[in-house]
């Protein structure tokens, strides 16, 4: 059926001014960012969290640069001799289990690797796994929550029963179960997927609840009235309203993902081919660090994990406080 009409001009006025949309948009973003920054700066804990995370981000990004500049040892280099020079793997005087000293600040491990540079390099993979697992879990949780909440009916029913299944199993037990089933064969991506999959269910619940309340709002009805389809309404109108919630949740989930990775590594499921703090602790345990007097082998990565989790938690709560209208103090 065709119901076409001539789109008549609304006004006869000719407008020669071409607004540069991009510029208006950039200016508006900058303005909003400044306002957000003003509010965020008042949150002392949020600022502490941000600085902790900036420090770790610096560690993660600077590791390859510092190493190639010669300021940081290669974490896989075997150290020999009293001056801890790099030597071939089959070196005779490997400095294994060396206590902390002026050359190696945290000592060396069972193979004569520098623990300090291992810690510095471990930041990368630890943060990467945390970010990726959180992103995956947010993606999955948001998608399921949105579909479940907006479409409702039997779709909701089925999805929520699946969510229930994931919620009743304790996170770590579920992670162990999945690791036992797939962990040995999965690559790093598979490993991250397993962590992500154990963490998405509560996000799905959260997003669903938000969507259920959002879809009663009048602007959704208006979107329907202007002729928008369901998909457009969900992604253009419902999702942007739930985004701040998802964002704060994502930050908090990074912390949980890092803890999960550390736990799994310690239990004997380290991420394949990746050096993380969790792996360091596992090796420390495996090679009896304490008996060799190398307490820092455990304590340093442990503290790093605590600090990064603290950083993400502080930042997450600060953002939650800003975005979540019920906690907002503005």
């Amino acid at each position: 059926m065709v119901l076409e009409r001539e789109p008549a001009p609304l006004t006869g006025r000719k407008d020669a001014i071409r607004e540069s949309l991009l510029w208006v948009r950039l200016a508006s973003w900058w303005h909003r960012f400044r306002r957000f920054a003003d509010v965020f700066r008042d949150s002392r804990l949020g600022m502490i969290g941000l600085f902790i995370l900036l420090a770790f981000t610096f560690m993660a990004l600077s590791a390859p640069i510092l190493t190639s500049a010669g300021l940081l040892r290669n974490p896989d280099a075997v150290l020999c001799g009293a001056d801890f020079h790099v030597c071939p793997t089959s070196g005779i005087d490997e400095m294994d289990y060396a206590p902390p000293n002026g050359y190696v600040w945290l000592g060396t491990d069972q193979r004569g690797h520098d623990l300090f540079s291992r810690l510095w390099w471990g930041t990368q993979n630890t943060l990467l796994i945390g970010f990726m697992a959180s992103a995956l879990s947010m993606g999955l949780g948001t998608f399921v929550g949105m579909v479940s909440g907006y479409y409702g009916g039997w779709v909701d029913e089925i999805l929520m029963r699946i969510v229930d299944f994931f919620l009743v199993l304790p996170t770590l037990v579920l992670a162990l179960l999945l690791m036992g089933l797939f962990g040995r064969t999965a690559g790093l991506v598979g490993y991250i997927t397993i962590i992500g999959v154990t963490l998405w269910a509560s996000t799905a619940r959260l997003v669903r609840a938000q969507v259920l309340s959002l879809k009663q709002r009048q602007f959704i009805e208006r979107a329907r009235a202007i002729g928008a389809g369901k998909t457009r309404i969900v992604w253009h109108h419902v999702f942007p309203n739930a985004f701040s919630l998802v964002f704060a949740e994502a930050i908090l989930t990074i912390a949980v993902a890092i803890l999960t990775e550390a736990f799994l590594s310690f239990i004997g499921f380290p991420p394949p081919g990746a050096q993380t703090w969790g792996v360091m602790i596992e090796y420390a345990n495996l090679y009896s660090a304490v008996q060799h007097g190398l307490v820092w082998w455990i304590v340093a990565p442990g503290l790093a994990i605590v600090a990064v989790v603290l950083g993400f938690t502080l930042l997450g709560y600060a953002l939650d406080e800003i975005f979540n209208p019920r906690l907002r103090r503005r």
Partner: protein
Amino acid sequence: MTLLDVKGLKVHFETRDGIVRAVDGVDFSLGEGESLGLAGESGCGKTTAALAIMRLLPTNGKIVDGEVNYMGYDLAKMTSNQIRGIRWRHISIIFQGAMNALNPVKRIGVQLAEPIILHEKVDEEVAMKRVGELLELVGIHRDRASDYPHEFSGGMRQRVMIAMALACNPRIVIADEPVTALDVMIQAQILELLERLKRELGLSMILISHDLSVMAETCDSMAIMYAGKIVETGSVRDVFKNANHPYTKDLIAAFPDIEGPSVLPAYIPGLLPSLINPPQGCRFHPRCKYAWDKCVAEDPALDSVGDGHRSACHLNAAGGPPA
């Protein structure tokens, strides 16, 4: 020329307590460039009738009978894809409490551009230019397109909603209580704006309100609804000056007279009947001061009582209440 012709429209809602007959056989028509007022107390089916025209009823509401003829097509029988092409492009709506109908996290300009981009194959730049024109049409500076809804006052948001209703050059605009949540000064501004736009753009308008004074100022003809039915319809002059139906008379009497002595205005005793079990016969009879046994037995038809003036009351045929 008749643009929109609604015939025997019936809308039922399925609820846990039973079927609610929210709109029960309503006829009205809207001519080109004309404005029609739908009046009546809360819950009488005004909004439901309007939403039914655009097929925007909630999921438990259904058009069970009747036709909505627009340009030779029956909107009531269109598929959902077809009706999406009608919405906004041909018939748009200014929502009740329109200030809440804006998405709080999207810029006004983007929201105004949305119907344009959805319905006309234009790129963003053309759409944004149109947005600027629309905003100036309703008296808002075009630079404010990049602001968010919370940065506008209530009256401005209402004007943004009006601009949005005009985004795709619709032929018919349904204004559902466009001024209800606003103070009197802003009400006057908004009504004047609607009036001007109607005149300049040649719009046809359906104005829904419970405020008869708003109707008197802006409409050509009006229909008074009671409990899902139209009880009286005609030109604004006829309905006001020669009100025929007892309900209409009571409604008009319920308005305070600012020139007369300061007494409380009359009110209509009783409540709107349940629409699950509407009263037998004339639906107004439990509250009507003239009701007699015929009113309980028989539902009066909407009969002509003058040129284009129709009323549904047994008094007309009987020539007055029996002694």
